[in-house]
């Protein structure tokens, strides 16, 4: 929970009594409670998921999942009535389209990630099947989270396309393409894939890039190991279930010992069964970590954009410098650097004064243009650095808050698990004592 919403529940250690539903998305709850951005005006939720079948682009029948987005104006909810929400259905690919649009249109924003397309980091019990109901449910939660993040964002919440995503089911796709973002997306893609070296990147962005690489590595490892830990924990608990059976059989051949054994066996069965709930809750923690793992891509994208603008600036500046130098050489008649023109003039004789004058004219114009370009690029770069860094700072604060929240929930889960363990073994011990 946020610092200003019910920290007492957590602080009183002896009384940690969160229900699993509360814990399930404490970060989502805090976003809603904060009522920032669009959330001040409307409630947003991804209420349901449904399977659909239809013909796809190549006329083949496919099954896919659609998600129900419910919106309702905040002030529509009065004491007397709660009007029905507006509804529309979206599939995952439409969420992806929205996100790509936002990435391209607001390159200085660390855009929230979407939940996994496919279940990749899962422990054995979870199915990697996209149609698995547990997976679909967790994805539904993840999509809602994404929408809330965007709705909360000081810049993104004002975007028209985002608003239409929530309100206009038909024709939304066409509207997105009408913005012409696709062209920008293509050139952006080309630029990011090209290799280029930036001479003077802003140090903060270089550090940020390192940080996102480190965070990605450590969160990947953490999620992998956690999944293995969950696997093993499952094994430990489930094997205890065998005691229940043998105690029951054994109690049948005993006289005085029988009752104690039988009832103890029941408690050990309860213990063995409890692991299912425990691990289901832990999946929420894993999902919260995953969100930040995926966030590192967005961080890297912002750094990359900075590098690109910086590179364009440096290229423009370099061009300008070389034009100026060329002009100087022509004016003073000295050739400082090797050039084919220089060689040619040496071999074929000097140019005429008019030829040289013409060249100088051209160069002077190019220099003027170049200086404009450099000014422009400089402003672009500066603006980008400014706006991007504001969003990076916002992101950092959000990350620290959310991850602390996630760790608290995790600790609370562990505490609850320990208490249950103590309880069940104490019960079993009482039964054993009666043997």
């Amino acid at each position: 929970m946020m610092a200003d919403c019910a920290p007492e529940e957590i602080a009183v250690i002896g009384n940690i009594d969160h229900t699993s539903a509360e814990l399930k998305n404490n970060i989502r709850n805090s976003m809603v409670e904060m009522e920032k951005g669009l959330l001040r005006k409307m409630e947003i939720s991804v209420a349901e998921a449904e399977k659909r079948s239809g013909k796809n682009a190549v006329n083949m029948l496919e099954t896919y999942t659609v998600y129900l987005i419910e919106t309702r104006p905040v002030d529509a909810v009065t004491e007397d009535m709660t009007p029905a929400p507006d509804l529309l259905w979206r599939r995952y690919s439409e969420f992806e389209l929205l996100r790509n649009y936002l990435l391209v249109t607001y390159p200085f924003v660390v855009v929230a990630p979407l939940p996994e397309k496919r279940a990749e980091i899962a422990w054995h019990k979870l199915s990697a099947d996209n149609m698995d109901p547990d997976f679909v449910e967790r994805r539904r939660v993840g999509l809602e989270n994404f929408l809330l993040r965007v709705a909360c964002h000081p810049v993104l919440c004002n975007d028209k396309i985002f608003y239409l995503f929530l309100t206009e089911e038909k024709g939304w796709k066409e509207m997105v393409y009408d913005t012409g973002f696709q062209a920008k997306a293509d050139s952006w893609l080309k630029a990011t894939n090209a290799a280029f070296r930036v001479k003077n990147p802003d140090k903060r962005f270089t550090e940020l890039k390192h940080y996102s690489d480190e965070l990605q590595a450590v969160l990947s490892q953490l999620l992998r190991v956690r999944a293995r830990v969950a696997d093993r924990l499952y094994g430990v608990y489930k094997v205890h279930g065998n005691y229940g059976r043998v105690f029951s059989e054994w109690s049948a051949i005993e006289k005085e010992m029988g009752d104690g054994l039988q009832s103890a066996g029941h408690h050990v069965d309860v213990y063995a069964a409890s692991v299912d709930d425990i691990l289901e809750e832990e999946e929420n923690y894993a999902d919260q970590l995953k969100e930040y793992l995926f966030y590192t891509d967005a961080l890297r994208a912002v750094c990359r954009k900075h590098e690109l603008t910086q590179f364009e600036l440096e290229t423009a500046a370099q061009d300008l410098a070389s034009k100026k130098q060329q002009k100087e050489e022509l004016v003073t008649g000295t050739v400082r650097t090797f050039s084919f023109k220089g060689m040619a003039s040496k071999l074929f004789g000097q140019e005429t004064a008019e030829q040289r004058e013409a060249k100088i004219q051209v160069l002077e114009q190019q220099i003027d243009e170049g200086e404009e370009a450099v000014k422009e690029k400089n402003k672009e770069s500066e603006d980008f650095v400014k706006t991007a860094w504001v969003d990076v700072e916002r992101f950092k604060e959000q990350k620290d808050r959310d991850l602390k929240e996630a760790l608290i929930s995790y600790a609370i889960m562990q505490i609850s698990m320990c208490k249950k363990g103590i309880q069940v073994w104490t019960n079993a011990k009482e039964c054993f004592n009666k043997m």
Partner: protein
Amino acid sequence: MSASTPKALASSGQKPIQEMCHPLGLEEAAGVLTPSPDVGNTRNSIGEKDLSLPNGTPVETSSPASSSSLLNRLQLDDDLDGETRDLFVTVDDPRKHVSTMETYITYRVATKTTRVEFDLPEYSVRRRYQDFDWLRTRLEDSQPTHLIPPLPEKFVMKGVVDRFSEEFVETRRKALDKFLKRVADHPVLSFNEHLNAFLSAKDLNKRQGLALLTKMGESVKYVTGGYKLRARPMEFAAMGEYLDMFTPKLGTIDRIAQRIIKEQSEYLVELREYGPVYSTWAVSEAELEEPLEGVASCIANCSSALDELTEDMSEDFLPVLREYVLYVESMKSVLKKRDSVQAEYEAKLEASASRKEEGTTTAVPTDVEKCQDKVECFNADLKADWDRWQNNKRQDFRQLLTGMADHNIHYYEKCLTAWESVIPLLQDQQSQETRSDIEKD
């Protein structure tokens, strides 16, 4: 002498000793699980009241190890119905002996007693496993109608188990201690000459055993095979059936316990990799550094607790189960012996009956009568031992299983403490101030 246990062999008519507290219970309650003689001091707080032996002599606290178990026996003796104890034994203080020929371990066997059969009230001798084995064999030979408690396994695979490791020696010591206590508690076995020699002789001359045959009269040699049993009395048949059903349960429980230990060990391996990842993460962070380090050290604490749990279960739980398998084997062989004694009697009876018919004799021959006596004695001894065994079994398993529950409870308590200590690290200064405000209300 206030001791009410008879010297002679318990024959039919004697009431079996029912509610005698099992020595195992005392051992565990005393917490005397280490070989060091200092251990007894931890329990001295219990012995605040004025304790004395049944005949009025005060309890000496000079030899700590045996006196601690002494104190605890007296403690638990409160619920006995008048039954008193006058023979207390302990096995402790394992020591390694290295000679040119071999290396072996000896244990101190300490005895405190008021019985007249012993010259002194206290003894302290050193014995090795071989000596215990000798004692057991002598007991089996001289008291064939009784159930002799089992010894821990004699042979250990040299490559697989380290015979001189602390764990192995300690496990063995506990089992030897249990063995000796069970013998010392037995109303008949405890009066055996060989036990006396074992407890008191400076040097155990094992060849002595052959000369010290039982005073019971004729040597009891049993014919194995040759005679077929006609009708096993119901109660002994029931015993056999029970053992046949009980043995597989023991096996299953052993397998489950081993499997759990294995799963826990694998869980531990993963935990030991899991914790440090939080530390690695902490390095990249600023505000989250402290909380993440907190989580890492918390997981490390849980790992240690799990390690302890697994170790405790290996050391305390599995050996006792295995011992019961051996115990069941002993009981089965005594039942078989009883069967063959009865078979012999039946055969002789039948032979004499047919001779009677032929008219060659009129009286029942004395050897048939003797056989009948043998059968009746055996049946009575066995029944008494069976009841004792059932009772001890009940107490042993109660203790074993409550011990298992306790180990798990302690494990979860340790983990709980570790995780609770992480919570304050995860909260802002701000909300901590809020908390202290709330707690003031």
